[in-house]
């Protein structure tokens, strides 16, 4: 298994990055025209790695011509279960910086921002140091590599908010305002920072941009699957023996990733894509006669692994009603109590909702309230239907993906574990729970 991205770990020192071939992509870029660079990214088929999976080349192409234009690197990694951007920022900052400069060149922007979440202070220092180094090597600033292209990068910090990971909320935060998303249209590519055209790209996406310009679009397009080419960093955590960032080509079967990380105990459920990802379980399994068995350790019963037998790329996840999202994979074993998973998930949404639109602002509060009641032994059976109805209304009428996606984990939990939750509610007076 070749690590195309992860081979750049430990290159926070610019010399070590250059030794591995770093900034060759930028050198190649400067010799092309901006249009040619955009075409290269388009041909590679690169899709955004932040969560939405929008084709990067098409996003760049749709940028309005108005000047000045801005490129923003979204380093506000807040999706629970995701930690790949932290790794890239701390261990391969130049890979990210090179991608940002290339994006600036292709989109004829002179200013780039890296918006890094406030809870990553060490990574902020590292990336700033890397920027200063790049400046010294004339890879940033005026007349980069003696060309007419000038580009500057400023680091901005977040203050503790998950919703600012949404691109419009991020832009509001950079402009010094409260991090509320805004309704699109207008799209940032038409009216972003200070109403000027802006591109927002994820850390990993920009890292891929560096790789593409280093190695060529054809090389990139051959890795991974047809609709989602390229290598991808998958973050595995939860009840696994070897949690961490794993690089696989896009479209790797879920089982390969989970097996590499090694389930700790008996696999019960998996959440993919982050907190707004659906939850898949092994409970909805049926006995099959396929030879493709996957022992889950439960004595005597061997389940066919068909329900968890899907690939991790954008098209495959969409086909089963989910989304790849950030590529976060949280594994739950039999000790995991789904009532608690419900409470943790809904508490997250309630605390992170920006409060602008009514469905999400009021909906997340009521959902959390009900989940907390269930978790602390004061649940009611009616809650389940009310919660579903609420999440459905939020999916239809919330202003941004945060509120719209609450239905995803809820659906998975209720579809696969309704019995467990109902049972919990029915027997709650026999269960002692700590209220926290």
């Amino acid at each position: 298994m070749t690590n195309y991205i992860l081979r750049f770990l430990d290159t926070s020192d610019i010399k070590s990055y250059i030794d591995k071939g770093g900034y060759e992509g930028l050198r190649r870029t400067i010799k092309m025209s901006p249009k040619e660079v955009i075409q290269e990214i388009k041909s590679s088929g690169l899709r955004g790695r932040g969560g939405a999976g929008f084709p990067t080349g098409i996003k760049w192409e749709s940028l309005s011509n108005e000047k000045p234009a801005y490129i923003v690197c979204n380093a506000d990694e807040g999706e629970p279960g995701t930690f790949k951007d932290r790794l890239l920022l701390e261990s391969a900052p130049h890979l990210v910086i090179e991608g940002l400069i290339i994006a600036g060149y292709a989109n004829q922007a002179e200013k780039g921002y890296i918006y890094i979440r406030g809870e990553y202070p060490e990574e902020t220092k590292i990336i700033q140091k890397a920027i200063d180094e790049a400046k010294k090597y004339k890879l940033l600033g005026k007349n980069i590599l003696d060309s007419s292209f000038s580009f500057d990068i400023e680091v901005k910090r977040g203050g503790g908010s998950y919703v600012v990971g949404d691109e419009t909320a991020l832009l509001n935060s950079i402009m010094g305002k409260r991090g509320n998303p805004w309704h699109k249209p207008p799209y940032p590519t038409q009216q972003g920072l200070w109403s000027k055209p802006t591109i927002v790209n994820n850390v990993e996406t920009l890292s891929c941009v560096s790789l593409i310009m280093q190695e060529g679009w054809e090389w990139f397009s051959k890795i991974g699957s047809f609709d989602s080419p390229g290598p991808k960093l998958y973050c595995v955590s939860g009840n696994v023996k070897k949690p961490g960032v794993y690089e696989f080509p896009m479209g790797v079967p879920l089982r390969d990733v989970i097996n590499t990380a090694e389930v700790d105990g008996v696999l019960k459920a998996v959440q993919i894509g982050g907190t707004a990802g659906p939850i898949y379980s092994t409970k909805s399994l049926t006995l099959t006669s396929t030879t493709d068995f996957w022992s889950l350790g439960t004595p005597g019963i061997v389940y066919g692994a068909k329900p968890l037998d899907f690939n991790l790329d954008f098209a495959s996840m969409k086909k089963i009603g989910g989304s790849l999202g950030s590529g976060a994979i949280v594994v739950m074993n039999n000790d995991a109590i789904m009532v608690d998973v419900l409470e943790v998930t809904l508490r997250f949404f309630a605390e992170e909702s920006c409060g602008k639109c009514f469905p999400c602002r009021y909906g997340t509060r009521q959902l959390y309230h009900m989940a907390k009641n269930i978790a602390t032994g004061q649940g009611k059976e009616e809650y389940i239907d009310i919660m579903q109805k609420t999440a459905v209304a939020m999916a239809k009428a919330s202003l941004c993906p945060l509120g719209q996606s609450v239905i995803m984990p809820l659906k998975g939990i209720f579809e696969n574990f309704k019995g467990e939750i109902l049972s919990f509610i029915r027997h709650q007076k026999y269960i002692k729970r700590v209220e926290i």
Partner: protein
Amino acid sequence: MEEKRENIILAFHKAQEESKNNYIPIEKVKEIAKKYGVSLSEASGLLSFYTMFSTEKRGKYVIRVCDSLSCRLMHSIDILLYLQNKLNIEEGETTRDGLFTIERVNCLGRCFSAPNMMINDKIYGNLTPEKIDKIIEQHIKEAEND
């Protein structure tokens, strides 16, 4: 750092770091609002949106315990309870000696070392009660030397 509105969050971070108690004194909020060209109400509203900031004094060390899914699966609640017991304060409170504040936060982006906590700028993972004892002791010693 130019005194433009886009740098206001950076200014708040700096002011908070400069205070010894992880907070931004109200007079500083006023100063920053004036300098960065925003009204007092906008600065105040902005500050209250971002949970890392506080206008009330907190401990010299703010302990942020992660309680999102991966950390919860790795028993973050036990870590939180252990800390609360050890320092004799509840979540959101500060110890009498002004050293520690406990806060429960959402995903810190280090799920592979769950359960995690941050103390000011440093993150500590794979926590156990023994590790926590050592870390707290380290900080108490550090505070004594200041």
